[in-house]
């Protein structure tokens, strides 16, 4: 979701990342020996994966093939009490380190949301909620200092911090014996997680974490203001040229309206640039990076054209931290590249002040309108939940039972309590049965239990977001067919240091070329430098990591 200062924040993250790396280099000089990168082929460890057992709780109205979530058109009038036993066995307060993007709610003792769930669990979970944008630094510090709580949540993009695999071996409990094969049936909610999600939880041949299943595998969608295009008698594009023409027609700088946000990533998808593992693909037995492909060159040409002709909002061209979503909601831009996760809350909030507000993602298309577009995405888990080593069998089982509670699916009482809090305290029920949350909820909820393992594998709506479920599932049903196959699926990789250090400079160079600060003709030189400075090393690394 693009929000204010996104670029600024991204830069800051990049900088902090570099600072963290150099700090580590100074501190120990031992991180990633030789800087060669590591990879683990988790396909070889099927034997330790938990057995899958589907849960029968409510049937979705609109079935969407996994890894995308299915849709439910109505909220159930009666909820299932899926877990009758209290998971807590009197083991004392469970300390949890987690993350969120937002204000930190009150803690244990002054938070009714926490209190009511802890009562249900039969044990107190006490959260330390950290800022998601600086979490890598916090993780580096607490893992390095071996100062961890009973439970720790790490997002997948932070598991590439230096020496993370070592930390997993040293600090976190091996969950294999607790969960492998039939053992997981003790935790029926966790048993309903797909095999692919558990594959991601394997470190060093051991099952090390409970995954947060990703039910939205799509990286980007291209949203447009349907209300504005309808009024202008225009429709969504089906080819790159149509997109360009659409941009020309709706850009009216004198009225303060521009066609596009920064759509650099989405245009690459349109031109079928590879996106797996940061942009690698296998081509006739050879490994090729996206920046070397003719598709990427074509995408660059297109981007240079739309930027040069002023079809992108000038505030976003300057990367001065302008808020693309705000501009989109205000109708100052008409087409925005964004994640699907932002859709529902944007619709809900905007309909309160603009009854005509309509947004839709464009049906996925390829540059020439051919029948097989390409969609970037990944079904890898979003978060991993680790349990501290050495807590003992009883305590580990107690924690796993709590995680099982957190993973209860849509249609259960547990899900509603986790997602909305207590009726009458945190929400009131509308005529459509859907909980309507209040200020207390906004003040107390911060994905505490949700990020622990509480997947959200259900698209649900309500009267405040009409047609959302239908529209969402229509798009995902179509897009999921074109998800790019990942040749390294199931292989956990940690990029060689030289390659990961190239990421930010390369992104900056793409920005420079797209914005016309460097000529397009420089691109072959840029690629040659990239190869020399670590690109070729990365290629060798990915060639070796490729499963047979």
């Amino acid at each position, binding site marked *: *979701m693009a929000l204010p200062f996104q670029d600024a924040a991204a830069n800051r993250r990049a900088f902090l990342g570099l600072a963290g790396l150099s700090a580590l280099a100074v501190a120990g000089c031992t991180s990633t020996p030789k800087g060669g990168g590591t990879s683990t082929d988790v396909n070889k460890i099927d034997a330790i994966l938990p057995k899958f057992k589907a849960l029968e709780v409510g049937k979705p109205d609109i079935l969407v093939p996994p890894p995308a979530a299915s849709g439910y058109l109505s909220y159930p009038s009666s909820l299932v009490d899926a877990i009758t036993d209290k998971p807590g066995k009197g083991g004392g307060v469970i300390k949890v380190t987690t993350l969120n993007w937002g204000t930190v709610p009150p803690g244990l003792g002054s938070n009714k949301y926490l209190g009511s769930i802890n009562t249900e669990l039969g044990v107190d979970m006490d959260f330390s909620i950290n*800022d998601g*944008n600086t979490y890598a630094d916090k993780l580096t510090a607490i893992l390095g200092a071996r100062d961890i709580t009973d439970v720790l949540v790490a997002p997948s993009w932070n598991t590439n911090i230096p020496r993370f695999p070592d930390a997993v071996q040293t600090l976190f409990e091996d969950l294999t014996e607790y969960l492998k094969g039939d053992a997981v049936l003790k935790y029926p909610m966790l048993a309903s997680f797909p095999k692919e999600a558990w594959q991601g939880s394997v470190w060093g041949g051991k099952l090390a974490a409970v995954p947060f299943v990703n039910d939205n595998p799509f990286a980007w969608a291209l949203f447009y203001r349907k209300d504005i295009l309808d009024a202008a008698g225009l429709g969504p594009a089906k080819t790159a040229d149509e997109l360009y023409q659409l941009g020309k027609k709706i850009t009216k700088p004198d009225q*303060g309206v521009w066609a596009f946000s920064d759509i650099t*990533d989405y245009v690459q998808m349109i031109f079928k640039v590879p996106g797996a593992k940061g942009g690698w693909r296998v081509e006739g037995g050879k490994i090729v990076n996206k920046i070397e492909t003719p598709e990427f060159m074509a995408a660059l040409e297109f981007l240079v054209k739309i930027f040069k002709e002023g079809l992108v909002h000038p505030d976003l061209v300057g990367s001065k931290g302008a808020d693309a979503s705000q501009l989109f909601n205000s109708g100052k831009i008409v087409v925005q590249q964004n994640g699907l996760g932002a859709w529902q809350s944007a619709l809900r909030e905007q309909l309160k002040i603009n009854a005509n507000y309509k947004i839709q993602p464009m049906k996925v298309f390829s540059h020439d309108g051919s029948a097989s577009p390409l969609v970037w995405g990944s079904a890898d888990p979003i978060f991993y939940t680790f349990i501290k080593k050495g807590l003992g069998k009883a305590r580990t089982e107690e924690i796993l039972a709590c995680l099982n509670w957190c993973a209860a699916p849509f249609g259960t009482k547990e899900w509603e309590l986790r*997602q909305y809090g207590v009726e009458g305290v945190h929400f009131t029920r509308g005529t459509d049965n859907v909980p309507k949350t209040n200020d207390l909820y906004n003040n107390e909820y911060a994905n505490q239990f949700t990020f622990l393992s509480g997947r*959200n594998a259900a698209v649900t709506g309500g009267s405040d977001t009409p047609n959302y479920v239908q529209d969402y599932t229509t798009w995902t049903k179509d897009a999921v067919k074109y998800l790019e196959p990942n040749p390294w699926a199931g292989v956990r990789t940690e990029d060689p240091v030289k390659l990961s250090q190239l990421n930010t400079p390369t992104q900056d160079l793409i920005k420079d070329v797209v914005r016309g600060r460097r000529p397009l003709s420089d691109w072959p030189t840029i690629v040659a430098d990239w190869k020399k400075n670590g690109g070729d090393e990365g290629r060798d690394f990915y060639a070796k990591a490729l499963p047979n």
Partner: protein
Amino acid sequence: MTRPVWEEKPTVAGQAGKGTLLTLVTAAVIIPLWTVVVTSLSSRATIDKAGGLVFIPRGFDFSAYQSIFATDRVTRALWVSVMITAGGTLLSITLTTMAAYGLSRPGSLAHRPLLFLFLLTFLFGPGIIPSYLLVTGVGLKDNLLALILPTAVNAFNLVVLRAFFMNLPGELIDSARIDGASEWRILWQIVIPLSKAVIAVVALFYAVGYWNSFFNAILYLSDPSDHPIQLVLRSYILQGQAPPGVSLPGTNVPPPTLAIKMAVVVVTVIPALLVYPFVQKHFTKAVLTGAIKG
């Protein structure tokens, strides 16, 4: 009789030029502040119409302020920041003044190796993990002192003060000593009164540093009731922002409006702005100190 150029009546063009330049400079400072304040007082519809920050006010809407003060999150964080800033600045300035005085006196015990140790921190930072180990090792985790003690003495400020103290006439200190004054008394009654301006400026540096610090709070404080205002501000500004390309599960908590974000910015900036006028006279004086030295 020709008069020197500075006594001549300024030309109209010259005055107009100066006026324009000063207006531009002032505008460059005022306009962003103005925009932040106006946006914080605007309704959602106004912000939506403007497509973001609002420059021309269209009515006043205090709902953003009502919203941020509806819970004690912001007021508590402000109080924490005020305590850290006041306590930290007092401690820092006391330690730095004493250390700088001791190191400025030639012949004081081990002053060269000690100075070297201070200067070493210019070149080498400890890094995140060693700092974390030290701070948690001495039991400062979840303690507000973790925001003060690790940054209590800044080598740059120490060098500035030491250089100033070294330029004080030695005779003055010698005569005080002849009159029987102890080192404490010399520091308290001779050196500090003569150095008020530079001490005020160094105190301002420290105060601004404490007021703006947030990173140590991220590392060491897990209880949200201990969070300083900058951390709370950050959480408001970045709310809902996930890493690019990652689609987080949707949440029912609405993201704060731009008005709320700007209202928190206003609340964060005001205390710092209030302090400046009181320190300003010292600030000018300290900048001028040394201006005519060769």
